[in-house]
């Protein structure tokens, strides 16, 4: 078990910069998600850590040992592939045994370790099956057992749940988290699914165009995004753009929006404010003036009912704002209705314009 340090790593494929000076510190025993849209470099970064590909510049170390020029087979990592990559010519038990067997472990040792790994992923009785006789979720578990049976220093997962259907994916998320806690292995997890990243990881790194946009615990990134991209890619956000007033912004029409969090900026600079849809209160009473709250007037253009909550789309000065309201039994608003939106400055994040 060991932490992983990535320092100033760059990697280009021809003219395309897949990774541009990325530094990120994966602490020992943590569960990290690398999140980003396709082409953001997250898989390239994982492949650098795995050793399938070497960086053009920068350093990578696992457990304090420099590995950026060490080939994958010598890095003592475990990897789970998107398509599982189980060996079709071997039984489940032989698949799991592969890593121990190429290392030349004794047969008896291999047998006990394989059984223990299969038990851990709750497939103890399926060792004799062939991969093609298993369901997608079972293959996933075999791939995981195969990756951890060698006691690797770090576990790398490349969109491991991407090929599973929704219900199974949620099961596997819980299962994966349980196993990770049980063996306490440093885990780096590549995904483009923001919900998966939020629910599973201790820390998230958001990548875009080969650069690390923001890194931190899920709560921090969600509550205090440092860029419009981070705000909109991880969760939903209403973005207001204007000029900074020091502790907020002034929109083009003169409306002031106060921000209680985020960057400190010199007055006059271009900036944005981000507000999460669930932080906004929606109502019809224009009367009561709450001096602390940000307030905007608009008109409901659309309502989407999703059972436990409703999403309102509110038109305001050419901008569509999104508001999510929990289903508390209160009166629902109709489409076309004039409404007042209120939210606190603490729910508003000031972001420097990029």
């Amino acid at each position, binding site marked *: 078990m060991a932490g992983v340090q990535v320092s100033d790593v760059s990697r280009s494929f021809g003219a395309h910069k897949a990774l541009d000076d990325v530094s990120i510190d994966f602490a020992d025993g943590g569960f990290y998600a690398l999140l980003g849209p396709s082409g953001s470099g997250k898989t390239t970064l994982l492949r650098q850590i795995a050793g399938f590909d070497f960086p053009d510049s920068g350093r990578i170390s696992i457990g304090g040992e420099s590995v950026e020029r060490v080939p*994958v087979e010598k890095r003592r990592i*475990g990897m789970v592939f998107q398509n599982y*990559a189980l060996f079709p010519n071997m039984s489940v038990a032989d698949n799991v045994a592969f890593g121990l067997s190429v290392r030349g472990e004794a047969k008896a040792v291999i047998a006990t370790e394989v059984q223990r790994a299969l038990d851990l992923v709750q497939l103890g009785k399926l060792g004799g099956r062939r991969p093609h006789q298993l369901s997608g979720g079972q293959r996933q578990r075999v791939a995981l057992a195969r990756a951890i049976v060698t006691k690797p220093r770090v576990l790398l997962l490349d969109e491991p749940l991407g090929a599973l259907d929704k219900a199974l994916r949620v099961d596997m998320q819980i299962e994966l988290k349980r196993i990770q806690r049980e063996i306490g292995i440093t885990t780096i997890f590549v995904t483009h699914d923001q919900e998966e990243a939020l629910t599973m990881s201790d820390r998230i790194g958001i990548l875009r165009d080969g650069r690390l946009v923001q890194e931190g615990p899920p709560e921090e990134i969600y509550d205090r995004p440092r860029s419009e991209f981070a705000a909109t890619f991880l969760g939903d956000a209403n973005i207001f753009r204007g000029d900074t007033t020091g502790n907020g912004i002034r929109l083009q029409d003169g409306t002031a929006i106060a921000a209680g969090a985020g960057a400190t900026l010199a007055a006059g600079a271009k900036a944005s404010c981000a507000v999460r849809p669930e932080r906004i209160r929606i109502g019809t009473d224009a009367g009561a003036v709450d001096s602390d709250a940000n307030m905007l007037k608009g008109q409901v253009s659309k309502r989407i009912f999703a059972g436990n909550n409703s999403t309102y789309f509110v038109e305001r000065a050419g901008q569509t704002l999104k508001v999510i309201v929990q289903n508390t039994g209160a009166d629902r608003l109709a489409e076309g209705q004039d409404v007042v939106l209120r939210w606190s400055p603490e729910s508003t994040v000031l972001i420097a314009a990029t």
Partner: protein
Amino acid sequence: MAAQSATASRSGLRSALPLLAPAYIWLTVAIFLPLSAMVFFSFMTDLPLSGKPWAFTLGNYAAFFSQSLYLTLLLASLRLGLEVTLWCIVIGYPAAYVLAKVLKGRSREAIFLLVILPFWSNGLVRIFSWAMVLREGGILDTALNAVLPFKINIDLMYSYPAVIIGLVHSYVPYMVLTCYLTLQAIDDSLIEAGRSLGATRLQVLKRVIIPLSMPGLVAGAALIFVPVVGSFMEPRILGGRTGTFYGTVIEDQFVAVFNWPLGAALSFILLAVVLVILAIASPVLRRAA
């Protein structure tokens, strides 16, 4: 349920008939009928064509067993088939691997074309080109002597190695093609998975790639072994006096001695032996594949 699927397969067969018919009619006319005639000939004392009297006999088959020469030649031909097949694997498999797993795009197409090229050249031209290369004072001899500081004599013409070289050249594309197809179907992530588990490239090759490409190796071996055992052109032209094999003896019966019944009988003995070998080998090969 079973009845249902039986009906389904029967109606499937009926609709497939128009597609199957041309091939099977052609095979019947072009192969089965002449072959049947040959079976018939192999039991005759003489050809009925020349108007000479003839009778049915088992003598042609008995000749194989009464003269040890035939058995010796058959064994030599089987050895030849085995050796050529092995060389084709040694040369063809790595080439197929590089084509399927290392090269991409234009360079793959170019190298592929070079592999196919022997297929498109005339067999006789190919063999006589080898004769130019292999004989004393030929291209290989001259080239080596031009480079090496000492004098050596390279005269491979009319030798067993010459026969092997010619046959391997003719048949190696089969091995490259069959292996290429199976190797290409192997997902690259299997190689990466193997290496991530600590296996060297060689261990991945031995434990994953070769077992998974076994069907291609077996198909290639069968495609090469069978015709090489009966080959006569390469042994005759490149082997000269040393190039007497089972295939050349059969050819002699048809072309020189004009003893078609004996030639036919020897052919069918060869066919039977090859079938027996394939039958014995098939469970082993199927397990490996």
